[in-house]
């Protein structure tokens, strides 16, 4: 391996595949930002690109790009760790390679169709070929089936590799979680004409993916990442992974009820949703204790500072975005006024960024370290300003945007919901008030700041570690010598 050079061909097959997944993920992340900026601009200038690239299309591509790039990031991370964790090569490299290209081709076709066919009648034909119409998972039926088949192929490769090699706590949880991930998507694929019933199943995909299976998947990735970046003991990390799974599933599964408050489901969901949603921050609060314990008991030193910084950002971001921002509006007495306003959007932005963007970025830095020949990536390495500024710009942008959206949502809840009584007229009245308009301007400004941070991050992905010549071993050897002495 060449220190500081690109060692792509030195990587294992699965790791090379991961690099491809990460590359597409970052392209989609950039697309998410650009379409978000376009949608944000249309709040300020409603005629902007009207009839050319409508708001509903921009918003749809913005959100779909986010869902897909995060999935790509997760899949890339899984392929990165699978051979290391199992101790054997991937069992089906050809299938894995084909899956990547089929999935990427399908995603490209779906997005092109979104952009080319923006309006028209909705019928069985369009449902199969153009747009299924379900918010956040608008992909047409053919793509739905393709996604499930690709997930099955990925599951075969991951589970098969662990079967051929060795099992561990991390791999066991990971494989079971992949079954749930693919299985739950099926709930969003069938159609009923009863809207409450349709929404009932649709939320299984949205909530149970995001607040259950994705959280557990991230737990597995983080567990492996902590072993690699901090040298954390496997037994301890695995024990905490089991505890996290228990706590997350214990509160998260029936926390689903907070989406059932207003869709026409029975009244008992108010109680179930309120109760379990109130419990959802407890695991996050409790985990703070363990973080403080570890930081206090062990003076950890990391060989990959950018990755560690993003892992820390993950811990705080998850707590703030999902825990604090979520609980603010999760009780039905409050949610009655806030759901569907920019308040929800504020929570969504901060929670997705804090819980998922951070962990994927951290993992990409781990991959870059390997790609650069296992160099020491310290806070003082050449060009370190780039990752520090990217981290700062992305976080300042995201927090600023979330606060701006919170103010807009607060105003909407008052004017549109509480005073206006949720009428059609009140809906528009709520969006012309000065507080709302000003908040949208601030959201736009922070969105631009965040986009600048992302561009810097992408540049750093290409350059990080390039000038570094110190190998990781130079860190480990003195300690080994000290331990030996």
């Amino acid at each position, binding site marked *: 391996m060449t220190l500081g050079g690109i060692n792509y061909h030195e990587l294992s097959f699965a790791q090379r595949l991961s690099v491809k997944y990460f590359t597409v993920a970052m392209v989609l992340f950039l697309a998410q930002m650009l379409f978000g900026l376009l949608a944000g601009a249309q709040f300020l200038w409603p005629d902007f690109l009207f009839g050319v690239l409508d708001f509903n299309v921009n918003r749809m591509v913005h959100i779909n790009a986010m869902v897909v790039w995060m999935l790509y990031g997760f899949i890339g991370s899984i392929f990165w760790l699978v051979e290391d964790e199992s101790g054997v090569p991937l069992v089906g490299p050809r299938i894995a390679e084909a899956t990547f290209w089929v999935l990427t081709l399908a995603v490209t076709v779906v997005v092109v169709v979104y952009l080319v066919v923006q309006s028209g009648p909705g019928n069985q034909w369009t449902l199969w070929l153009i747009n299924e119409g379900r918010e956040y998972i608008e992909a047409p039926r053919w793509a739905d089936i393709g996604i499930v088949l690709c997930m099955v192929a990925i599951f075969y490769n991951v589970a098969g590799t662990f079967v051929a090699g060795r099992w561990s706590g991390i791999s066991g949880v990971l494989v079971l979680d992949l079954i749930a991930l693919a299985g739950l998507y099926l709930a969003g694929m069938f159609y009923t004409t009863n809207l409450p019933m349709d929404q009932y199943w649709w939320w299984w995909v949205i909530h149970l993916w995001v607040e259950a299976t994705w959280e557990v998947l991230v737990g597995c990735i983080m567990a492996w990442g902590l072993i690699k970046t901090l040298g954390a003991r496997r037994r*301890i990390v695995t024990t905490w992974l089991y505890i996290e799974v228990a706590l997350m599933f214990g509160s998260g599964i029936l926390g689903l009820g907070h989406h059932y408050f207003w869709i026409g489901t029975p009244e008992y969901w108010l109680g179930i949703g309120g109760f379990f949603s109130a419990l959802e921050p407890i695991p996050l609060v409790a985990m703070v*204790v363990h973080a*403080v*314990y570890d930081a206090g008991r062990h003076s950890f030193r990391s060989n990959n500072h950018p990755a560690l910084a993003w892992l820390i950002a993950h811990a705080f971001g998850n707590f703030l975005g999902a825990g604090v921002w979520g*609980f603010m509006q999760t009780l039905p007495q*409050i949610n009655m006024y806030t759901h569907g306003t920019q308040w929800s959007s504020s929570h969504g932005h901060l929670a997705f960024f804090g819980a998922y963007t951070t962990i994927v970025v951290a993992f990409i830095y781990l991959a870059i370290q390997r790609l650069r020949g296992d160099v020491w990536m310290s806070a003082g390495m050449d060009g370190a300003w780039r990752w520090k500024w990217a981290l700062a710009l992305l976080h300042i942008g995201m927090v600023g945007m979330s606060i701006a959206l919170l103010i807009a949502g607060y105003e909407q809840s008052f004017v549109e919901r509480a005073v206006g009584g949720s009428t059609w007229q009140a809906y528009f009245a709520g969006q012309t008030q000065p507080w709302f308009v000003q908040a949208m301007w601030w959201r736009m400004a922070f969105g631009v700041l965040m986009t600048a941070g992302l561009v810097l991050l992408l540049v750093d992905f290409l350059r990080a570690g390039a000038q570094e010549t110190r190998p*990781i071993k130079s*860190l480990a050897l003195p300690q080994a010598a000290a331990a030996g002495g």
Partner: protein
Amino acid sequence: MVDPGRIHTFAGAALIGGAMVLFGAGYAIFHALAGLSRSRRFAYISLVSYAALAACALALVPLLDLEGWWLGLIALLLIGYFVAPRFIWRLSLAVHGEGGGPPEGAARPED
């Protein structure tokens, strides 16, 4: 529509809900710090954070007109937020106290 005199209550309740989780984190952090440093000051701050959390939880009752089993929910919340950080602290001691195998990571800084 809501009585104009009451429309501030849900927003206040939302902010208090957020503050409750933040105080919960404060309670957890200072409880852990008190355990690490055996400092009484951290232990007091931890209890003050919990008291603030409890005050927030109780403030939700009149703001949201909570009654019946919703009061039970508040009680359970108070118990849950009190017990969970202590439980995790004990678990941390138990898990780490038993030692472990050799590390797998490249850096092995804690020994």
